[in-house]
């Protein structure tokens, strides 16, 4: 075992982690630990752009952007956070340009902007050109640009290190730490993939920037490595996780594969059509049609398929039609995604419509934070020195449905804020001493050795496949009480089988078999919360649609969901757990206790959401 000491340790080297690192590393001694080489992070797969009210090509302002974000999130957005994001978006884009990001340009040489789903002029009048972009590889360019700056600033990376535990000075998992009591972060335990060695990173501040969890679904745009590790680590250590039932299904995944085709395709004029060739979005969102927010478009597509108007031999997808666009325009604005269609489906988008179907894309929920990125351990108290930003965090700027481009914005705005806050806190804080008698890595080592040492048992791939199948079947775009009960039973059965998981690779070096087993454990923990949250939320809002409760219910459910993992013998309520949010559900070896947190509303009163 090796021990390291850094003022700030950042977990994850995608956009949020590297943006945080750029701030933190110029202020204090910082390390970034990443399960991948930084340039492999999934920020690089983002395509369409990053919205900011630059007003480079038409009138726009940050207040309209705030409104769109709040409405897009079906009013579950914390409006103070959304306002900060929309205001700071402008500098966030300009900062990236000054770092050298090659944005597409207007004829005047300024940053060009294009339309994107749910982004409108003057509170919904018409689509507005707000998305700043670099062809259809904006995320790639953001990831590259941030990495370049990290190289320039000589940021310390620990590549292919997996964070496997979070160390804090109180055991929060028992649920008996009183409100108001000071809780401090101590550090992180990580596993070095190349050698199998355990590393303890002592830190004054720890920033989670570990990304999403889309791999719990079968059809997903997410990388194989997006298994919710950071969120699950926080949850296992007794921290709440917020709004996990809100998962975004992106409308245009390549049919059967889930590979993302950017909303920019529709921003540039692409049209969704059913088997009759009808532009069906005109029926569902008469004003902005194909550029309605993702939850609405995804549901509309799934509905077309359900009602028998799907395309193809099995009528199980719809068409994305780009054939009316000039090939030169497609090449200039959408080169990568049209190549995906050619490579993976053998479809030529110049002349043929592209088969598409919704794909699990983005987790709106995550580790709850305030607007400085500080992690909450209940509705009011933070853990001192602990921060989160990006998809693993829930601040909550996305509410129940994220608008396109707002994730690249989120990672830049809140990655930056978390990096600054973590470094400034560390400057005035001391390292918390480790308990001399206790081995801080004991839990992790025991877990690794238990799995590695088991001679026979369940194969991780079998369990993972079953998990992804039940999530797709029962907890996807359309959900009901019955389907969710089925998903819960399946997930819990798989979790019991997981207790006997075994791996074939018993070696130390590059044991990816072992890591996949660990990742599966994280996903099983989170899937249970996704399903339980979906069950208790007996309403439809944003990305969460209950066929048995198809309307939004602001009286009952205008609340954030806060889920805690607690011991089996714990019966206490958590935080604000009145009415429908008093759920206390026992699994084999733990309970999930669910409470709620108020939504912060400032300027905008909830209205019916029409487009």
């Amino acid at each position: 075992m090796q021990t390291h000491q850094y003022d700030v340790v950042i977990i994850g080297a995608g956009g949020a982690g590297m943006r945080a690192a750029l701030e933190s590393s110029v202020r204090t001694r910082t390390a970034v630990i990443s399960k991948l080489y930084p340039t492999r992070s999934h920020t690089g797969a983002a395509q369409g752009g990053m919205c900011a009210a630059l007003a480079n090509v038409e009138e726009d302002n940050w207040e309209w952007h705030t409104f769109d974000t709040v409405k897009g999130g079906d009013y579950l957005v914390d409006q103070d956070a959304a306002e900060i994001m929309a205001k700071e978006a402008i500098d966030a884009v300009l900062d990236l340009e000054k770092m050298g990001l090659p944005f597409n340009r207007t004829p005047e040489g300024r940053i060009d902007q294009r339309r994107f789903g749910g982004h409108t002029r003057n509170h919904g009048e018409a689509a507005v050109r707000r998305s700043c972009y670099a062809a259809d590889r904006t995320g790639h360019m953001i990831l590259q640009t941030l990495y370049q700056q990290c190289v320039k600033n000589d940021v310390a990376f620990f590549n292919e290190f997996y964070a496997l535990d979070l160390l804090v000075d109180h055991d929060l998992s028992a649920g008996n730490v009183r409100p108001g009591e000071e809780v401090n972060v101590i550090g992180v335990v990580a596993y070095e993939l190349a050698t199998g060695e355990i590393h303890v990173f002592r830190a004054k501040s720890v920033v989670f920037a570990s990304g999403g969890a889309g791999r719990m679904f079968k059809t997903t745009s997410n990388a194989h490595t997006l298994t919710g590790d950071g969120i699950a680590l926080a949850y296992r250590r007794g921290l709440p996780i917020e709004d996990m039932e809100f998962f975004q299904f992106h409308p245009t995944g390549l049919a059967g594969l889930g590979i993302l085709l950017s909303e920019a395709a529709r921003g540039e004029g692409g049209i969704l059509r059913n088997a009759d060739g009808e532009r069906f979005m005109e029926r569902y969102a008469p004003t902005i049609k194909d550029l309605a927010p993702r939850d609405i478009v995804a549901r509309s597509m799934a509905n077309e398929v359900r009602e028998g108007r799907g395309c193809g031999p099995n009528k199980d997808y719809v068409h994305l039609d780009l054939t009316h666009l000039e090939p030169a325009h497609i090449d200039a604005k959408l080169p990568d995604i049209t190549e995906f269609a050619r490579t993976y489906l053998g479809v030529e988008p110049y002349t043929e419509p592209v088969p598409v179907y919704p794909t699990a894309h983005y987790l709106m929920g995550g580790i709850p934070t305030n607007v400085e990125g500080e992690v909450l351990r209940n509705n009011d108290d933070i853990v001192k020195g602990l921060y989160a930003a990006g998809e693993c965090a829930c601040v909550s700027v996305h509410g129940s449905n994220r608008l396109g481009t707002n994730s690249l914005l989120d990672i830049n705005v809140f990655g930056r804020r978390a990096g600054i806050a973590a470094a400034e806190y560390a400057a005035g804080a001391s390292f918390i001493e480790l308990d001399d008698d206790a081995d801080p890595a004991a839990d992790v080592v025991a877990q690794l050795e238990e799995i590695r040492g088991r001679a026979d048992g369940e194969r991780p791939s079998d369990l993972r496949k079953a998990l992804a199948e039940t999530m797709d079947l029962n907890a996807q775009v359309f959900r009901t009480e019955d389907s969710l009960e089925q998903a819960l039973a399946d997930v819990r059965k798989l979790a019991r089988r997981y207790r006997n998981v075994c791996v074939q690779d018993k070696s130390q070096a590059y044991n990816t078999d072992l890591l996949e087993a660990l990742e599966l454990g994280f996903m099983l923990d989170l899937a249970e919360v996704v399903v339980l949250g979906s069950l208790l939320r007996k309403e439809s809002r944003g990305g969460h649609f209950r066929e048995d409760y198809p309307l939004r219910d602001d009286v009952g459910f205008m609340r954030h969901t806060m889920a805690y993992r607690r011991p089996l013998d714990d019966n206490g309520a958590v935080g604000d757990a009145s009415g429908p949010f008093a759920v206390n559900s026992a699994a084999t070896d733990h309970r999930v206790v669910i409470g709620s947190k108020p939504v912060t509303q400032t300027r905008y009163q909830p209205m019916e959401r029409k487009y």
Partner: protein
Amino acid sequence: MSDSTQTPAKEVASFSVTLKIMRTIPSDEPSAGYGAPTPEPTSRWDTFTLTMHGTDRVLDALHKVKWELDGTLTFRRSCAHGVCGSDAMRINGRNRLACKTLLKDLNLTKPITIEPIKGLPVLKDLVVNMDPFFDAYREVQPFLIAYGVEPTAERLQSVRERARFDDTTKCILCACCTTSCPVFWNDGQYFGPAAIVNAHRWIFDSRDDGAADRMEILNDREGVWRCRTTFNCTDACPRGIQVTKAISQVKRAILIRTH
């Protein structure tokens, strides 16, 4: 994405595939770190015969082996659609991304050979040590160098200026180009195509003032002049970057520079 059962757009029937994979078992010696002599690992070929479907890719076949037959098979992968650059490998003797290579596009009457990319130390099976590759990348100062007063809004750049370096911004640092280069195989000190591509990306960016420094670095004996214009790199690039052309443009820029 990998084990799809939904109907793909164009149905291709199931077929049988034989993979011949170069396996390398790491030595038990503890690693002495980058630069130290690596103890000889042991290598062998393993053969697997699988039933695959439709538009399955080489990555799907590797996953099928790992998940159903042999959990010890080790390779890197992440995004699975050709944008993260993790799964560069030598497939039938050519550098490709496993997630971008469809099985049906290969000759399935013969075994498909899969080896680690060449010229970097093999650590385990298809996993190589990427440190020398990223070290070369870092040496070309792959970041904006701009002198003078920073503007309050964005720096202006015309559409034409932006287009000059568009091709080389597509690089995902997968190392397909560098590890396809015979010069790199024989001389590990050579910067290699990927580092030059990333220097090109800045040398031809109108906002950047660091071109002279980068050209000085690449005018080194291990720099651009080692390139023998074999075009392996261009063939290998999964992003379609005209790598050899970019290297030639850097060579020309060095020759005609005025300082």
